[in-house]
């Protein structure tokens, strides 16, 4: 393995090599998106329980002020993304599917939109539980896409010791370059965030994994880090899904998270570089999460780039601003094209977990007829988990969902989509697996 990883770079077995498609955005500095006239802030834009609103209709709010509080530990508060007036709390369409209660804020025209609310803390004097609580108060959730509350991720259950914090700077999804720009432009914030997270976890070392297509980011991080220090930067091979938690742990640490377990079971916690940058910026100042960097790219966009977008900005406003050309692009994805979801409406807001907006052309002219499996084995060669998508697909076709779970490790599939990506027969394998998993869950209820 030693020689092999020397030749190929650190990586996990199998996987796929989709085109990077990052040329249009990765070299442009992050720009600020103007404030939309009306913001939609869903009470639930994270994993866990929805936040509880603290504001009422017609109330004036200042940018950065808490507008909803966390409902217990498994929740995070929300902060006003703009200075303005609360228009109401209504059910609104969101990217998560069903309509969600959201706080609507009319932006005050002509306001400077400076941050008006902060609770600075002396981080040195906080113990670990206090640090975790402080992180919860800034409303931080994972910026990579899953929107898992960061304070939950950093508080490990009793009995588990974390030795290594893995920081995910892979950004293996095509088109996306937000993390790349963050590593270049907010290098110090990333490192500051890593130090805070290490303290919260009690971890003695951190490893930042960056794909080898971002040598400038690797150099920028290394220039700020002591070679012998506790934080290391490791180059990993550009391959999808290098940025998935379990694959990155395998690539960097040569450890595997046992099936059905979490990384903390083997002493590891993984966080995204974007999350670390937010943590390093916001926590020392005691400010809430009110904006994030979003890559906007794809053939349907005339001004692609990375934008600093206020949380709650309606997608329609964002698309108009970046020169969305209209009807030819009917395939709008939140997140990256490999794992992101298409939106049902242009009224959905950008939430804390949205790392990218990718507009693809309509693939209607392509022949996407589903053919029988020709057993070419490409899916088996692609599956990063080591499953047999071909057999699983055949079982799904005859609805033997229990067998898929009991004997074919269906629940280890994390839906990266490699199998569907390579299948020459156009079998929607990962979609079959999603259906199988949800039907199995239904059956258990």
């Amino acid at each position, binding site marked *: 393995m030693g020689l092999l990883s020397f030749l190929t770079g650190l990586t996990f077995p199998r996987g796929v090599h989709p085109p990077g498609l990052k040329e249009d955005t990765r070299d442009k500095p992050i720009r600020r998106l103007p404030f939309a006239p009306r913001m939609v802030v869903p009470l639930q834009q994270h994993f866990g329980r929805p936040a509880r609103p603290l504001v009422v209709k017609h109330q004036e709010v200042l940018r950065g002020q808490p507008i909803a509080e966390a409902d217990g530990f498994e929740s995070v508060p929300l902060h006003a993304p703009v200075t303005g007036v609360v228009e109401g709390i209504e059910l609104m369409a969101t990217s998560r599917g069903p309509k969600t209660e959201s706080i609507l804020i009319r932006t005050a025209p002509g306001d400077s939109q400076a941050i008006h609310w902060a609770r600075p803390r002396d981080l040195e004097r906080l113990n670990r539980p206090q640090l975790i609580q402080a992180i919860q108060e800034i409303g931080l959730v994972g910026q990579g896409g899953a929107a898992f509350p960061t304070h939950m991720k950093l508080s490990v259950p009793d009995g588990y010791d974390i030795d290594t914090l893995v920081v995910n700077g892979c950004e293996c999804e095509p088109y996306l370059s937000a993390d790349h720009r963050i590593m270049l432009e907010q290098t110090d914030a990333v490192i500051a965030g890593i130090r805070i997270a290490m303290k919260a976890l009690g971890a003695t070392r951190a490893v930042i994994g960056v794909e080898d297509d971002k040598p400038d980011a690797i150099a920028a991080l290394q220039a700020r880090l002591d070679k012998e220090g506790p934080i290391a930067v490791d180059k990993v091979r550009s391959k999808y899904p290098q940025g998935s938690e379990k694959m990155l742990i395998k690539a960097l640490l040569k450890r595997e998270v046992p099936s059905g377990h979490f990384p903390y079971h083997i002493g590891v916690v993984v966080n995204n570089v974007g999350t670390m940058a937010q943590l390093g910026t916001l926590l020392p100042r005691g400010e809430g999460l009110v904006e994030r960097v979003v890559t906007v790219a794809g053939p349907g966009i005339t001004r692609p780039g990375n934008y600093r977008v206020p949380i709650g900005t309606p997608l329609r406003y964002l698309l108009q601003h970046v020169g969305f050309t209209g009807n030819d692009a009917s395939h709008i994805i939140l997140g990256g094209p490999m794992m*992101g979801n298409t939106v049902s409406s242009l009224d959905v807001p950008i939430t804390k977990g949205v790392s990218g907006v990718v507009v693809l052309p309509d693939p209607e002219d392509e022949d996407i007829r589903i*053919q029988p499996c*020709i057993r070419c*084995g490409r899916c*088996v060669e692609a599956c990063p988990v080591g499953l047999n998508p071909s057999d699983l697909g055949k079982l799904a076709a005859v609805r033997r969902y229990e067998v898929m779970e009991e*004997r074919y490790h269906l629940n280890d599939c994390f839906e990266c989509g490699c199998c569907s990506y390579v299948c020459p027969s156009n079998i929607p394998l990962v*979609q079959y697996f999603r259906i199988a998993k949800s039907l199995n869950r239904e059956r258990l209820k």
Partner: protein
Amino acid sequence: MTPLKIELKTSPHLKQAGSVEQIMRHVTYALLPICAFSVYHFGISALALIITTVVTCVLTEHLFAKLSGKRSSVSDFSAVITGLLLALTLPPSFPLWMAALSGFIGIALAKVMFGGMGYNLFNPALVGRAFAQAAFPVSVSTWTVPGHPDRFTEFLPSTLAMPFTTPAPVDAWTTATPLAQWKFEGVHVETWSLFTGMTPGSVGETSAILILLCGLYLIARGMMNWRIPAAVLGSAFVTASVFYWMDPTFYPTPWFVLLSGGLMLGAMFMASDMIASPITRSGIWIYGILIGFLAVIIRFFGGLPEGIMYAILLGNAMAPLIERITQPRPYGTRKRRDAA
């Protein structure tokens, strides 16, 4: 703003280029140079044979699709490949009516009855060939002199034999293949002529270099798993080397084993049939090694001079079992899973 059409789709939203039709089309392209050489080598009889089997295979598939009320799968080119491969494994003088019947049996018995494209346990072309071997033992082992001066103007006497008649071999045209010469007469044909293909043999099996190049084209395009031909040829070479080392006066050189008969064609284009071979990486190696070993053993100890056809069919039969014991180890589990 004009109303937008918004489509809801599920991830992944990108797709690697390549479809079933594309793979099958490229396999067809890769076989065409071999067909062209065989026509040059054996003349219009070989051409007639190729056309006959391709047409029969395509028509059989179409007919069964119509009978069962399904969308005709002829456009996926897989029946064309079966037809081409079947012709390439038959002797040039093989009567056309027998070839047509073999093609029909191959598609009907080995493909349609198992559920069509993607479900066949055995390579349909080889099942057709095995049928020919069993039903027409004389015609299937009558070999033609290559490069006959009249080959472009005259059909071989047996080619146009009336249906349900077996033609008698005509001495002026017939000869023995290098493999048969070794097996039954102890004569060793020079290795170089085996490499270039200027020898008697089945329509498309004679030129090892051409088959190798056509196979490499498919491997380079990512449309064939290189491990299968590598395992078959490697294992045949090693097995033959062991016997050659034990008795160099009796056994042929490993190079002769590699380049003679249908081994190269079988390893490159028939053992590598995706549908009838295992899908797992270690399974592919076991499958290939097994085929190479069996092919040499049948050649050396069996009644027939050539063993690759039965070796591959046995490999096909073993494939599901091999696959079952070679499932990949899922991430985060200790043991290989015990598949159904």
